[in-house]
């Protein structure tokens, strides 16, 4: 009996020993993992996660940023939905998306296709096409403001030579938004060019060869092979265009400041003005939180569409 008990005893102690060893190992692993992630996570929480929650919180207050906050519930959001300038800004943001999807992305595709065309000087074309994307948006804004200058600007001088009248590119309310959109197209098309370049490289040469044997011409090859296989890239580009529209600020701030008469106001410039020029921090937070919510909704919709598509195993 005694031996039996000691046997059980020793077995038990063995088990607890190994258990505590495992849990100690587990604890050590947890500590190691935490130490690796901590620096990034602390900075990220402080400057990204906390601010989003704080923005939501501030949006329920009337607040100039200095004196005490006054809780006003959803009043900021009600004001915002009745605020014409908010809707103008949102409309202009949608214009940016349109310009991206219907001009920038196709232009990027054309540039990328040209880089695979049977012509000389590809390196030069590739190099120059990409330059606009490298310059700071501040520099781009200042440069194009000069190009658009009604008297000394290169564009008006150019159209004068062709016999046209000067145009007030940035100070005419209905024209200004298109002038800025043009600069956005100029600066960001190269980005899509790079995305498409990577997509085209991934298409196997054999498919084209097979199509050639079947007697397909250049246009048919494009429509039947290139375009369908680039569909995922086009989808990615469109997501980036929508999110990019909500991120845009610099060019508008530098070139027009949202003017004339809010003609080029976008959510970014409007939020900035409300918060840091008029010191309506509460209202500014409400606009800012709507920007966040819009980005979130877009990403969630697109992610779930993507999920659905993958489930079906269909990439178009």
């Amino acid at each position, binding site marked *: 009996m005694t031996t039996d008990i000691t046997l059980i005893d020793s077995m038990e102690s063995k088990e607890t020993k190994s258990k505590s060893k495992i849990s100690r190992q587990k604890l050590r692993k947890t500590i190691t993992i935490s130490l690796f992630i901590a620096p990034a996570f602390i900075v990220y929480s402080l*400057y990204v996660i906390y601010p989003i929650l*704080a923005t939501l919180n501030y949006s329920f207050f009337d607040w100039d940023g200095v004196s005490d906050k006054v809780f006003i519930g959803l009043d900021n959001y009600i004001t915002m939905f009745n605020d014409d300038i908010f809707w103008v800004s949102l409309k202009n943001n949608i214009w940016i998306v349109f310009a991206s999807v219907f001009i920038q992305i196709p232009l990027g595709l054309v540039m990328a296709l040209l880089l695979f065309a049977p012509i000389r000087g590809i390196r030069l074309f590739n190099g120059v096409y990409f330059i606009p994307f*490298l310059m*700071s948006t501040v520099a781009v804004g200042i440069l194009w403001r000069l190009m658009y200058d009604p008297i000394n600007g290169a564009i008006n001088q150019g159209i004068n030579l062709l016999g046209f009248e000067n145009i007030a590119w940035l100070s005419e309310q209905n024209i200004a938004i298109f002038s800025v959109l043009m600069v956005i197209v*100029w600066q960001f098309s190269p980005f899509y060019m790079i995305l498409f370049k*990577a997509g085209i490289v991934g298409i196997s040469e054999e498919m084209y060869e097979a199509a050639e044997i079947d007697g397909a011409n250049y246009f048919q090859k494009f429509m039947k092979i290139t375009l369908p296989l680039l569909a995922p890239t086009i989808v990615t580009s469109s997501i980036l265009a929508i999110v990019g529209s909500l991120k845009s600020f610099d060019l508008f701030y530098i070139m027009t400041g949202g003017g004339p008469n809010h003609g080029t106001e976008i959510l970014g410039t409007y939020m900035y003005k409300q918060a840091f020029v008029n010191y309506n921090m509460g209202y500014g937070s409400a606009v800012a939180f709507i920007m966040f919510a819009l980005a979130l909704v877009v990403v969630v919709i697109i992610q779930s569409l993507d999920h659905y598509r993958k489930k079906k195993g269909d990439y178009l």
Partner: protein
Amino acid sequence: MISILKRSLLYILAIVLLLFTGYPFIYMISTALKSQPQFYEAPFSLFTSFNLENVQLVFEMGLTRYFTNSVLITVLSVLAVMLFASMASYPLSRMKFKFRGVVYLLFIAGMMLPIHATLIPIFKLTQSMGLYDSLWALLGPYIAFSLPISVFILTQFMAEIPKSLEEAAELDGASHFSIFGRVILPMVTPALMTVLIYNFIHLWNEFVFALVLISTSERMTLPLGLQNFKGEFSVNIPGLMTALTLASIPVLLIYLFSQEKVTTGLAGGAVKE
């Protein structure tokens, strides 16, 4: 015959796009090399003069200061991002633990975030830390907003390293820290270069945070300083263009020496999806 016609159409298209993308840039450099009277006489002419007195002028007007500030904050932020992001990516890509998916998603989601959603709290936070209107105010936001893309790129690369290398080191009794330093980091050097170039270009050109967090001219970074110049040089257009050209040089130099790296780097996040 048809192929010659087709080919010349391709050339025409390529050259039209070349002029479209390249002309503003040429115009900027050409204007920078003019004196003021020369600009007003013939603003349209290209490379008619080679006048370098503007370079001296813009440096005297404070460009050196902006340059130093930009170099300092950009280099520090990028180094910190490379360290923090690669550290975080190691367990995220090579270890199994609770909440891994959530933590990863939290980091990655930052790529889609409009900066404006964080501006007011970051402004208040910076004030309460006593950092408002100093160059250091930018360090936190710059690191934080560079993390998502960097973690994304690095986890993708780290996930591809064969497990056997790590196991061999583990059998030799190496700790996770030495595995990270001696095995993982050397393997992901190309990805680290991508992270470096991507973030350098972005932070060098960053504007919104600088605009909100810095107000004194001496503490401004280049983009903010250029915006300041816009007012001071409203008459001296060649001077302004000189400042723009000089401010673009560092990024263009990087591009010149590592063209492929820059393009794949800048599109890195999106392409790998």
